[in-house]
């Protein structure tokens, strides 16, 4: 006859040293739960909440981080007023909007098309999916660096291809230089990198549509075109919206890749709000002003994130 396995709770209780057990015996379950959760809450307060509150406070002052001994003056809403009436900042918002709108449009159109093609069963489907997804796995710093080489007017592959196809001399234009091509260059890179992400989300949406719906439509003699617009699109739409919101939030904060590709130039052609904010905070050292700028961007991203969470819950309910 074998001994029955010891109860794990009893075993843990027996293994707890007597002084610790005595101390814990007096605590309620709720208190013990708080002991476990407290370190996380403390870290959250110290790393997220406190800096946020501090930034809100700084946004009402003229504090400059490079002159900590200077007397800090309370300026009220003046920083917000200056940002929200400044035409330069408004122009940067439009540059960000141009980048946002075009990357999202291209990524959704190409991503959905790719997902629709991949969803059909063919030989080598998995290999093709893996190859398409590869750019998404790279670091933005790496992507920024190697696209800088690809865009080089003298040795870059892109200029060489353009010369080969159109006959325009490769050294006569620069994708990242003056001439209005720089904003489009960063749109191309972001689209190349993040279309696979949209494709994966669309693919999940397409695979969630049961086959019997299409079979019923076939029985009713609905054309492929009608099936696409009345079954496929409405059922993938929540997933697509999720992808749009996620990419929108991410691209609103875009910094690393654009900094490596253009640094905000030439001139202010690719000066996104995140790059402008960094310049205000750590090059011009206008900490109070940049805090107000950061709060404006934070509230915008937070608002978008709230919609994102709501959309996510709707997708989960399906």
């Amino acid at each position, binding site marked *: 006859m074998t001994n029955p396995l010891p109860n794990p709770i009893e075993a843990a209780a027996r293994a707890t040293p007597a002084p610790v057990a005595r101390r814990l015996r007096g605590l309620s379950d709720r208190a013990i739960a708080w002991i476990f959760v407290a370190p996380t809450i403390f870290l959250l307060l110290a790393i997220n909440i406190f800096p946020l509150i501090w930034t809100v406070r700084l946004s009402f002052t003229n504090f400059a981080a490079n002159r900590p001994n200077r007397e800090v003056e309370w300026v009220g809403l003046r920083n*917000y007023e200056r940002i*929200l*009436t400044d*035409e330069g900042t*408004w122009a940067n*918002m*439009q540059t*960000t*909007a141009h980048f*946002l709108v075009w990357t999202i449009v291209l990524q959704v159109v190409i991503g959905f098309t790719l997902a629709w093609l991949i969803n059909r069963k063919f030989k080598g489907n998995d290999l093709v999916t893996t190859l398409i997804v590869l750019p998404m796995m790279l670091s933005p710093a790496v992507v920024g660096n190697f696209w800088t080489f690809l865009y080089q007017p003298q040795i870059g592959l892109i200029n060489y291809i353009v010369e080969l196809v159109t006959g325009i001399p490769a050294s006569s234009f620069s994708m990242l230089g003056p001439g209005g091509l720089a904003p489009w260059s960063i749109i191309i890179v972001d689209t190349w990198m993040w279309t696979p992400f949209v494709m994966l989300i669309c693919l999940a949406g397409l695979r969630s549509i049961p086959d019997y719906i299409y079979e019923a439509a076939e029985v009713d003699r609905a054309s492929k075109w009608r099936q696409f617009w009345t079954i496929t699109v409405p059922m993938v739409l929540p997933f697509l919206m999720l992808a749009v919101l996620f990419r929108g939030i991410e691209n609103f904060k875009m910094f690393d890749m654009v900094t490596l590709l253009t640094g905000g130039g030439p001139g202010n052609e690719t000066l996104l709000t995140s790059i402008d904010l960094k310049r205000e905070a750590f090059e011009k050292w206008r900490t109070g002003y940049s805090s107000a700028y950061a709060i*404006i961007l934070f*509230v*915008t991203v*937070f*608002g*978008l994130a*709230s*919609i994102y969470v*709501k959309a996510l819950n709707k997708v989960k309910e399906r």
Partner: protein
Amino acid sequence: MSAFLSGLLRFRRGPWENLATVLIALGVVMLMQPFFLWAYTWSFLVTLVGTVMFIITSHFPE
């Protein structure tokens, strides 16, 4: 429309959240549009009101 209005009057989550979502979206559009400086100036306030409304109304009953 009447269901939406009665939901608003009875402080129900759905319509209030929808209203907050519209305000947030409107604020973001106002922030980034290239046509009117006044819309850009007021965009932050609209987004802030929408966001705060969203946080509060997400605690309303269904």
